[in-house]
């Protein structure tokens, strides 16, 4: 059961990766990287259950937060040209 779910994650990760590589604009790529992060968070949790060691969920928590920070930082750089405060 967990293996089937992991397979579904793998298939969608491949499709999202294709969007990252093909993507026309930066926004497509940012969106796709964010989705890849979400899929990998699910994958980490599922792999923990699949290997009978669900204690590793802490990493998934860290990931869910780090992914958000990275995405917002990239978008901020893209909008204002620097990472300083709100100098629009």
């Amino acid at each position, binding site marked *: 059961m967990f293996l089937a779910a992991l397979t579904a994650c793998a298939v969608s990760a491949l499709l999202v*990766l294709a969007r990252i590589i093909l993507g026309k604009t930066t926004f497509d790529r940012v969106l796709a990287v964010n989705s890849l992060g979400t899929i*990998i968070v699910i994958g980490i949790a599922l792999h923990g259950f699949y290997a009978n060691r669900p204690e590793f969920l802490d*990493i998934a928590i*860290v990931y869910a937060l780090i992914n958000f920070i*990275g995405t917002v930082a990239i978008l901020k*750089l893209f909008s204002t040209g620097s990472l300083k405060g709100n100098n629009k």
Partner: protein
Amino acid sequence: MISELMINAFLVSIMLAIGIALLKSRSVIYTVLLTSAYSLVAALMFITLDAVDVAFTEASVGAGISTVLFLAAMAFLPKKEEQTVNNQAFPAVICLVLGGVLIWCSYDLPEIGLATSPIHQHIVPEYILGSRDDIGIPNIVTSVLASYRGYDTFGETIVVFTAGIAVLAILKNNKKTLNKIKSQKKVVKNG
């Protein structure tokens, strides 16, 4: 067993695809994005290899802090990388030969997790036997890091701290100095 192999093979092929895309990319933001995606996949790889602590470090440092640091540094750079016109055949040959030698050498390595491999025979049994009586810390990893290799860890911490201070000093936004330089240039131009 075969499913573990398949998961690992899938993750490695995804990482290879991201690497090839990284080679092709010429936009700075795209490169940073791909690096972030690469370390996302790498951490999942570390988890399947049962290296949870490495995966934790990769998650927080590789995907998080280094992305933000790259971005902070690249805010000072032009948005597009210049196309290189040099001949790249020679570096490619060197990389292929070096990679081939490394792969060839890896066949002499002992199997992963084998108890009789040399690295587990030298001083590790001494640590495992002595850690409770010598140090008094129940966790072996902690006692090795903080006591047996205490000076080593101390030096590492100093190096990381120095690197952090240096990065802050470089990236600090010194507007006053910049304005001073600009005004000096103006004076030179006008006078």
